[in-house]
């Protein structure tokens, strides 16, 4: 399943959020609204960060909220929350502008996603700058499509 198929239109653009918890909550609710995860999964996404620190902020401006398969993940899928003004996680990768949340029902369904994510994050700055300027989900989808195509073609920085 490709990145955009897995995302399936679950994109939310926010000007700001009051806290990183709120941003993660919204990213999780997008997954829950489509039945990909149980509400317990969303709670667990937040609690994991509270307990273990903001390690999900894995590149400058980008965080990947998630929980364990057994925390209530029914199917594989992604959501994207764009916080235009950024939100602080207490991480060296603050401020975070993009939250790419995922749910995976087992420990391997998301491997292709992680591979595509690695390609995207190799150009995290361009990704962040392009997406945080988007004003609509359609526009963000279009940008993401272009970036993914360029990455796949190995000509991202042209």
């Amino acid at each position: 399943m490709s990145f955009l198929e897995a995302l399936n239109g679950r994109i939310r653009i926010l000007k700001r959020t009051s806290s990183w918890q709120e941003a993660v909550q919204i990213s999780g609710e997008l997954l829950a609204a489509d039945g990909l995860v149980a509400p317990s999964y969303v709670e667990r996404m937040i609690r994991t960060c509270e307990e273990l620190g903001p390690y999900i902020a894995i590149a400058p401006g980008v965080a990947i909220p998630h929980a364990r398969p057994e925390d209530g993940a029914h199917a594989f899928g992604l959501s994207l929350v764009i916080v235009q003004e950024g939100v602080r996680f207490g991480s060296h990768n603050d401020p975070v502008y993009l939250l790419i949340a995922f749910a995976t029902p087992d420990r391997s369904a998301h491997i292709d996603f992680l591979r595509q994510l690695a390609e995207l994050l190799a150009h995290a700055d361009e990704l962040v700058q392009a997406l945080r300027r988007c004003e609509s989900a359609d526009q963000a989808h279009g940008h993401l499509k272009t970036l993914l195509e360029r990455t796949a073609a190995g000509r991202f920085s042209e």
Partner: protein
Amino acid sequence: MDRKQPIRVVAACGLGTGTALYLKMTVEEILKKAGIPAVVETADATLAPTMNADIIVTGPDLAEMFSRRAKAREIVSISNYGNKAEIQEKLLAAVQRLGG
């Protein structure tokens, strides 16, 4: 160090399912390219420090937590997972220290 013995690397994250798996793929690729035999596993934050690994690769938040109690001989702390050059440089430096 006897290089016939593969080095044991643990890619660790909070839950062992997301970033750890992501790191594992990158670490395997780097070590393979460098011709360094290695076994790379994933682990969560509870398991990782208890493992008899040569190297733990993880983010700065967990690296700090592990530094006090991990069994592994080297802890490699990666701040930008998108920066393959950072991962390669820090990882290969740790491999070198193991051999020294």
